[in-house]
């Protein structure tokens, strides 16, 4: 799984599409595969109950489980709802691009994704260890010690390189104009707050990348292992 790429990829995509896509559904699409499952992968305490998937990797990425959320067919199904039920082809296509980006990015780890579900084959490059089953802090430590965090870093750097995408002029001339959602929201929320909302995922992804890196390597001294499939000090899940 990826920790910051799903926050940052929409800005990299946005740089190349201008007015052709809408940013909000692009971001929703990028978040959508994990939206309802992450909490159950890591587990939560609810009073006397511990709620956690018995096989987190299978629950998250497999079948039976919610792995279909990381498939093309899931993106197409939700996009069709945006298009045919809510009447927005722009939101449909934008959502689809974001969801595809997430599903493809997650093929980078050792579990991978069932891109062509209902075919249950897991496409996976195995570049970094999937360690969601170990709990969220160990998963964070492992992720920010392997190639996954370097993949995130590519998008942090690319975001700063493409800094114009984050400016208020860019927001006014492209983001706001591309999607009727923003003028609608602007009826209640002032423009200054809208720009902050637009920048929030980039701020969140980048700040979190730095914070977790400091936490893992300055506070706790987890060893970096940038070898393929690493870090090998954590037990990696496989399909």
């Amino acid at each position, binding site marked *: 799984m990826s920790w910051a790429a799903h926050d940052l990829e929409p800005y990299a995509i946005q740089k190349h599409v201008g007015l052709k896509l809408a940013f909000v559904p692009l971001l929703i699409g990028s978040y959508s595969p994990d939206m309802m499952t992450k909490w159950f992968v890591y587990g939560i305490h609810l009073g006397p109950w511990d709620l956690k998937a018995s096989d987190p990797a299978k629950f998250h990425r497999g079948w039976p489980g919610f792995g279909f959320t990381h498939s093309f067919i899931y993106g197409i199904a939700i996009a069709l709802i945006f298009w045919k039920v809510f009447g927005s082809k722009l939101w449909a296509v934008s959502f689809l691009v974001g969801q595809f980006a997430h599903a493809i990015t997650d093929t980078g780890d050792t579990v991978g994704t069932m891109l062509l579900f209902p075919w249950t084959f897991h496409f996976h490059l195995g570049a970094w260890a999937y360690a969601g089953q170990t709990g969220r802090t160990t998963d964070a430590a492992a992720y920010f010690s392997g190639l996954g965090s370097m993949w995130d870093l590519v998008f942090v750097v690319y975001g700063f390189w493409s800094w*114009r995408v984050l400016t208020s002029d860019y927001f006014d001339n492209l983001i706001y104009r591309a999607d009727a959602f923003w003028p609608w929201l602007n009826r209640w929320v002032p423009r200054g707050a809208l720009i902050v909302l637009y*920048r*929030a*995922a980039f701020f*969140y992804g980048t*700040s*979190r990348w*730095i914070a977790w890196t*400091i*936490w893992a390597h300055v506070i706790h001294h987890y060893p970096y292992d940038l070898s393929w499939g690493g870090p090998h000090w954590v037990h990696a899940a496989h399909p």
Partner: protein
Amino acid sequence: MRPRLSFDVPTRRDLRVFAGYFLAAAVYISIGVAWIDFLFSFWVGLAYLLVVAWAVPMLVRRLA
């Protein structure tokens, strides 16, 4: 012809905005490193940013 990387030079206004977000990020990261639960939720990050990058500056401008 050789391909060339180009980089727009930010204006002073762009840099001032960036500095504000940089400061906000420094505080966010400091809180997050000390208390990692702060880092887990996008909604917490969004609320934090709305407060420090929009609400507080707006209040300061109104009071000034």
